[in-house]
């Protein structure tokens, strides 16, 4: 048992923290958000230069063969700085589908341009009635002359507006909630029949609602088994859940630091408000919540490599519950302890809170995952 980072992992952490420390303060972030598409191409290229976009890919595919721990390190750092660039959508999820399910041809066609920063991806999964159920898919992919025709509507697709390639879940057979008959398809963002309506999200990212009308793709567009891709989807979404748990821990860590700093400097009644025991104990409870979440983020990271799908899913669901609860508590109390200033757009703490809030509702909220842990018989 060992909780320490290896030498390489420590260096990775230093390098990503260093990069973001020098180029991603709150004012710089505002500028990046104002750029075309809502994020900065310059920052993205810097991430590529440092090799961060190639981390999880195998060396054969031109990457670094890094594992879940490295992704955790990066996501935590991205969380601290509230990075808006599409790392989750492109590297973790898009890259995850290619790594875990892609053919040699698909890997060769897409991975190099992810690694060098020239292309980004988006995962078009959420439907009007699917909520958190990955197996609830109405969009269809019908076979036609050696390929597929995709029809359907997808919502809140992160990075959906600017992605070069969309990864789309669609049903090749069966009913809306059948676990079989679901496929995953690579669709060019500019394909005929793709209509994208982009918008900013509450937490400063960008998403799109996307309509697919008679979109034709070749047979080689399907990642993995087009009639049974749900296990692949679940695996990659579990990777994404672990990643956003780590991102949330980074945000919580920074929220607590910022809040404690505020308690030390803000004076009322002639003393720093951090001298009041009520506020001290609230901050102590935030620390407890943070440490519990950190432990479970590590647990989720380890679980990403579990071979047993049920064990993996239960562990990651449990982490999502803890991180959801801790994130809500720390997010809300950070605002409370800041008082009025915490309510304003001009101060960073509220933006932490907003991203934490959106993370809770991404790929299953606390209640949803608690139900999953319950249904699998618990953790012990």
């Amino acid at each position, binding site marked *: 048992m060992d909780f320490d980072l290896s030498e390489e992992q420590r260096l990775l952490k230093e390098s990503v923290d260093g990069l973001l420390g020098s180029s991603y303060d709150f004012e710089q972030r505002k500028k990046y958000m104002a750029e075309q598409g809502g994020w900065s191409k310059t920052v993205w290229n810097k991430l590529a230069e440092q090799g961060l976009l190639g981390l999880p890919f195998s060396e054969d595919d031109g990457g670094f063969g890094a594992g879940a721990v490295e992704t955790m390190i990066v996501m935590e750092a991205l969380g601290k700085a509230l990075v808006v660039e599409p790392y989750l959508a492109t590297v973790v999820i898009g890259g995850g589908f290619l790594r875990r399910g892609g053919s040699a041809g698909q890997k060769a066609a897409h991975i190099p341009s992810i690694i060098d920063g020239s292309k980004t991806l988006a995962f078009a999964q959420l439907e009007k009635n699917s909520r958190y159920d990955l197996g609830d898919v109405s969009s269809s992919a019908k076979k036609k002359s050696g390929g597929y025709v995709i029809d359907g509507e997808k919502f809140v697709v992160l990075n959906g507006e600017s992605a070069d390639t969309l990864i789309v879940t669609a049903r090749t057979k069966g009913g809306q909630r059948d676990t079989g008959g679901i496929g995953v398809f690579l669709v060019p963002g500019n394909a005929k029949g793709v209509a994208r309506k982009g918008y900013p999200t509450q937490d400063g990212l960008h998403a799109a609602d996307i309509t697919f009308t008679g979109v034709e793709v070749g047979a080689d567009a399907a990642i993995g088994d087009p009639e049974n891709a749900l296990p692949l989807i679940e695996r990659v979404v579990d990777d994404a859940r672990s990643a956003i748990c780590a991102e949330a821990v980074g945000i919580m860590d920074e929220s607590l630091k910022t809040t404690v700093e505020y308690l030390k400097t803000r004076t009322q009644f002639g003393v720093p408000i951090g001298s009041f025991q009520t506020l001290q104990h609230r901050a102590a409870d935030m620390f407890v919540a943070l440490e519990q979440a950190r432990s479970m983020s590590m647990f989720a*990271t380890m679980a990403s490599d579990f071979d047993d799908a049920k064990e993996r899913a239960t562990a990651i669901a449990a982490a999502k519950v803890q991180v959801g609860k801790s994130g809500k508590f720390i997010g809300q109390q950070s605002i409370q302890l800041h008082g009025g200033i915490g309510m304003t757009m001009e101060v960073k703490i509220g933006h932490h809170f907003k991203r934490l809030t959106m993370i809770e509702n991404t790929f299953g909220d606390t209640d949803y995952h608690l139900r999953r*842990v319950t249904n699998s018989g*618990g953790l012990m």
Partner: protein
Amino acid sequence: MDLSFSKEEVAFRDEVRAFFRDNVPSSTRQKLQEGRHLGKQEMVDWWRILNKKGWGVSHWPKEYGGTGWSSVQHYIFNEELQMAPAPAPLAFGVSMVGPVIYTFGNEAQKKYYLPRIANVDDWWCQGFSEPGSGSDLASLKTKAERKGDKYIVNGQKTWTTLAQHADMVFCLCRTDPAAKKQTGISFILIDMKSKGITVRPIQTIDGGHEVNEVFFDDVEVPLENLVGEENKGWDYAKFLLGNERTGIARVGVSKERIRRIKELASKIESGGKPVLEDVKFREKLAEVEIELKALELTQLRVVADEGNHGKGKPNPASSVLKIKGSEIQQATTELLMEVIGPFAAPYDEHGDDGSNEAMEWTAQIAPSYFNNRKVSIYGGSNEIQRNIITKAVLGL
């Protein structure tokens, strides 16, 4: 980073588990599973089995009978002990006064007391708290005045756990009344059979008798029973309280209780089906299991940190273990209450001192719930733990 046990650690766990399976007396095991108290002799018998195996004072330095295990091995040992379940070594001797004696005591004290602690030849109790000195321990008033070759001790201690069984008590006494609060306190070992000591039982809300008041009325104590230097007792007390912090999470105890909750909840029916099938109940249980998993990992992180950076410096993050560990213990006793519902009510007024064999198993569930309210109070209340986090971690 690797959160799984190594092959050697797994082998060690299996060895420890097998030893407990084969050596914990079945009546002892059953009483603990039912949340009942044990009699003095049952506990002493078990500790002597443990000591014979060489595991009685496992975390002590090797020269005094310790095992030389790694932090992870100690963790595994404690966890398996709690899950067996078997009584943990008597903390007052093994975890508290023992380390103070081998760290600050003189050669004669080490030679005499340490083997007796290991074999529980002496049952120790702790004379710290006083009626006016709880969380503000340094305000204590019990005084020890030098007179010839003796101290004359006068005062009162309270919340003295299992003093009714004790042969010895380690006491914080004021030896310099003129000195400021923390200075002027000494750490003194006192024979419980001394003339002038009176033990009065305190019955707690569960009906049990664990704690006592201890009165000292002109008690004569030989000067050689002073540990370390006179008026330095507060330092030794701080050392004692910072020791073995990681054990306070009691993860194994909560795991064992969750096992029992599931066992009972699958037998007891509500609305024609087992309580365990009630979705709301199961979700509440799952929530506790998740908190416990997080705590277990947090504890392992603190343990690993100790292993890497050396013992002796208590990690302030261990206050997290105390807060969460106690909350989870209380949550599990609450869930047990919920499982048996109205059958929690009957009260066995004969009480449970380990000898009441006729007691119904249901009769111990409410008392255990009531009794467990103590865990967020003792060992530095959870509010004191928050003060520690505030100062030592957050720097407020």
